[in-house]
C-alpha cells in the first residue's frame, strides 16, 4: 500500500523536490559540465582547455558517446544493459576478422554482432521475463568469456590499412551522425514518448496501446547495432583486441548517463541532452583528474564518489522500485 506522506517534509525531501523540477533537471547537467570544466581547468592551470588536451579527450570520447546513445534508449525504458563492454569486445573481434575482406563488410559485421547480442538480451528479458540487469550481467560474463577464447593467445589484429580511417573527420563524423539520427528520432517521432511511457509504467503503457514487448526487442537490437558501430571506431583507433577489450565500458556508460542527469529508472524526465552532457562531463572529469596528477586508483575513487552523490541527488525515489 502506498502511504502518502502529506505531512512535513524533511530537508532532504525538499532538496529532492527542487531537483525534480523539469527546469532544474534541464539546466543542472549543463551547469555541472561547465563548473567541472572550469574547476579542473583552474586546478590544472589552464591545461584542460588547451587545443592539445581537447584533441586528446575527443579521441577518447567517440566510442563512449556512440555506445551511450544506444544505452540511453534502453535506460529510458527503465531497463539496463551491463553487457555493453563484452558486446564491444566481441564486435571488435568480428570487425578485425572481417576487415581483411572489406571495410564495409567489417562495419556491417560488427553491427550485426552487436544486434545479435542485443537480441539475446531481449530474448531473456522480454520472453523469459527476467529483470534486464540480471540478464545482462549474465551475458556480460558469457561474452567476456568468448572474447578471451578468441583473443587470449594473442590479440586479434585488424588489417593494418584500417588505420587510414583513423582521422578526426571520420570518427567525429560517425559520432555526430549517430547522435543526430538518434536525437531526431527520439525528439520528433513517437519513439520518444513511447520509450518514456514504458519507463514510467509498463502495464499502463500496454493499456495505452504501446507494443511494449516489440519495442523492447527493437531497442535492445538497435542499441546492440550502435555498439557494433562503436566497435568499428574502436578498432580504427587501436587496431587490435585483447581479451579485456571493452572492459568497464558498461560502467562508464552508466556513470556518464547518470552524470548527465539521466534518472536511473528512466521515464518522462529523460532528455536527449543527458547523453552528450554526461559523456563529456565524465571524460573531462576522468582526464582532468589524471592531469592534476592523481594516480588512476585515486581518480577512480573520486569518480565513484561523484557518481554516488549524483545518483543520490537525482534518483526519483518514487519510481526507483520499478527498475527492470
Amino acid at each position, binding site marked *: *500500500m*502506498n*502511504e*502518502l506522506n502529506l505531512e512535513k517534509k524533511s530537508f532532504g525531501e525538499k532538496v529532492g523536490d527542487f531537483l525534480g523540477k*523539469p527546469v532544474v533537471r534541464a539546466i543542472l547537467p549543463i551547469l555541472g559540465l561547465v563548473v567541472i570544466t572550469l574547476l579542473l581547468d583552474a586546478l590544472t592551470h589552464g591545461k584542460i582547455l588547451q587545443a592539445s588536451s581537447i584533441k586528446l579527450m575527443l579521441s577518447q570520447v567517440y566510442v563512449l558517446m556512440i555506445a551511450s546513445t544506444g544505452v540511453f534508449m534502453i535506460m529510458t525504458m527503465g531497463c539496463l544493459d551491463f553487457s555493453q563492454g563484452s558486446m564491444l569486445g566481441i564486435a571488435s573481434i568480428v570487425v578485425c576478422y572481417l576487415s581483411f575482406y572489406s571495410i564495409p563488410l567489417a562495419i556491417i559485421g560488427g553491427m550485426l554482432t552487436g544486434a545479435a547480442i542485443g537480441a539475446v538480451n531481449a530474448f531473456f528479458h522480454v520472453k523469459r521475463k527476467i529483470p534486464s540487469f540480471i540478464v545482462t550481467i549474465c551475458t556480460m560474463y558469457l561474452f567476456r568469456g568468448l572474447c578471451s577464447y578468441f583473443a587470449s593467445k594473442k590479440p586479434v589484429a585488424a588489417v593494418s590499412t584500417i588505420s587510414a580511417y583513423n582521422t578526426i573527420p571520420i570518427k567525429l563524423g560517425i559520432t555526430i551522425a549517430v547522435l543526430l539520427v538518434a536525437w531526431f528520432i527520439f525528439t*520528433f*517521432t*513517437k519513439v*520518444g*514518448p*513511447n520509450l*518514456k*511511457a514504458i519507463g*514510467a*509504467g509498463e*502495464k*499502463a*503503457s*500496454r*493499456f*495505452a*496501446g*504501446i*507494443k511494449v514487448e516489440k519495442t523492447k526487442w527493437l531497442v535492445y537490437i538497435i542499441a546492440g547495432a550502435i555498439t557494433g558501430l562503436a566497435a568499428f571506431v574502436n578498432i580504427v583507433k587501436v587496431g587490435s583486441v585483447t581479451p579485456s577489450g571493452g572492459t568497464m565500458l558498461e560502467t562508464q556508460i552508466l556513470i556518464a548517463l547518470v552524470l548527465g542527469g539521466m534518472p536511473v529508472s528512466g*521515464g*518522462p524526465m529523460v532528455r536527449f541532452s543527458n547523453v552528450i552532457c554526461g559523456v563529456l562531463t565524465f571524460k573531462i572529469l576522468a582526464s582532468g583528474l589524471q592531469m592534476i596528477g592523481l594516480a588512476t586508483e585515486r581518480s577512480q575513487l573520486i569518480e565513484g564518489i561523484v557518481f554516488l552523490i549524483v545518483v543520490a541527488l537525482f534518483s*526519483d525515489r*518514487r*519510481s526507483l522500485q520499478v527498475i527492470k
Partner: protein
Amino acid sequence: MAELITKKDVILKAEHIDKSFGVTHAVKDVCLDFSRGEVRGLIGENGSGKSTFCSMLTGIYPIGSGKFVLDGKELHVKNQVEANREGVSIIVQEMGTLSGLTVAENIFLGNEDRFVKAGIKNGGAMNREAQSYLDKYGFNHIHAGDLIDNYDFEDRKLIEIVKATYFDPKVVVIDETTTTLGQSGRQELYKHMKRIRDDGNTVIFISHDLTEVIEQCDTISVLRDGALIDTVQAKDVTEDDLKRLMVGRELGDRYYRTDYGEPVSNEVVLSVKNVTVPGQIKNISFELHKGEILGIGGLSECGMHEVGKSAFGASYDRTGEVTLADGTHIDSIPTAIKKSIAYVSKDRDNESLVISDTIRDNICLPSLTELAHGGLLFGKNMNGFADKFASLISVKMTGVGQFVSDLSGGNKQKVALARWIGKDSDIIVLDSPTRGIDVKVKADIYALMSEMKKQGKSIIMISEEILELLGMSDRILVMKDGEISGEFQRSAELTEEDIIAKMV
C-alpha cells in the same frame, strides 16, 4: 440493543477509528464495542473498510486517528507480534505462513526467544511444543518438524489457526479465511471459533458468505463505504436484511439520466461470443448496440472487470471471440485502439494512466500516430492536443506538463477520459468510472456519458454501484461467479433488489 451490549462485559472498544489512503477515505470514524465471549460478524462490500479496520487493530497498518481500548487499556501496537503479546491476533485473508520454514517455526514466528537458551535455539523443544498444540487442536496429521511447503493451502490455514490462537488471545480476527477453505476445513474453523468464545474470548469474523455469518455469529456489524451502518443480533435478521444494509445507499440519483423507454438502435457494433478467461469468466456472450449504454454489474469478484479487459483485447489466455460489426477480431490492445475501442480500467493508477508521466503524454499516447505529420511529431502539437481535451472536460491542473501522480482521483479519471475523447473512440469500455470520485466530478462523468450516447457512441459501463447502473444503463447484465446471471432492460420500475437478487 444498546442495553444488551452494555449488560455484557466489554473487552474491546474502538473509539473514533479513522483512516485514509491518499484520497481514499477507507475507514470513517468507526466506534464499536466488542463483548467478552461473543462471535462478532463484520460484513460489508469490498472496500467498505472491514479489512482496513482489522489491520489497524492488529498493527498491520498504523491507526489514522482514534484508538482501540482493550480491557480498559489503550492499545499501542506497531506490528502483529506486538499485537499478539497484547492478546490480539489475526488470521489473514491471504497466505499468512512463510514458505521455507518448518511448521513449528511458523507457529512461533516472532516468539522464538522462548526457546533460546544462551543464544542457542532449542529446535527440539520448539517442535515438541508445536506438536502438542497441533495435537490438542486435533490436527494430528500435521507434523511440527516438517517444512510448511509440504502442506497444501488448506492445511496451512489450519496451521494459521494454531499460530493465531495457541496463546489464548483475548481477541481473534478471522479475515475472510473461509473462502479458501473446503467444507471440512470450515467445520474445523467453526469448532475453534466456538471454543474461543466459550473460553470467554472474542472472535471478529469477516466473511462475504452471509449464510455462514448468520449461522456462526452472535452479533453482526455492517460497514459501508468505511462507515459503521448498524450492529444487529444474528438471530433477528435474514440474509436479505443484511444485503440491504450492505448495499443500500442514500438516494443521490438526481444526476442520472431521466429518460425512459427511448428505443435503442438495433445496429450491433460489438459482439462478444463465448468468451472465457480461465479462473475469471466463463462463456460470456452479449451484443452491444450503437448508442447504447450497457451496464454490467455484480459483486467485485464476479468477473465483470475481466469482461471489460476482454472486450479491449487485454485479457491473457482468452478464448472465444470479440468481433466488430465489420468482422474485425479484437485480440490485442493495439488492434482494439486502432478499431476505435477505448478502455478506462478500474485500476486507475496502474492500468488507466501512466501516473509517473505527464498529463500531456497520457492524453497523447494512443493518438501519437494521428498527431504526427508525415511521421514527425512536434511538442507544440502534443501540447495543443492535450490542452484542448484536458480543458474540454475541465481537468484541474497547473498545465499539461504536470505529472498525473500529483492529481486527485477525480482529476486522474478526467485525464483518462480525455485521452479517449481525444482519440474519438466509438466504443468506450468504462470500468468503475466513478470509483472514489466526489459527487461533482461524478455528475460531470454522467453528463459526458449521456453526451457520448447522443453522438451515437456505445458504452459498456462496468460498475459495483447498483444505483449508477440503474440510473445510466439502457440495459443491465448482472454477473455472478464468472457468468451472466440476469439481464434487465431500462425501466423506472427496476429496483436495487431486483439486481441484488441476481448478484448474490
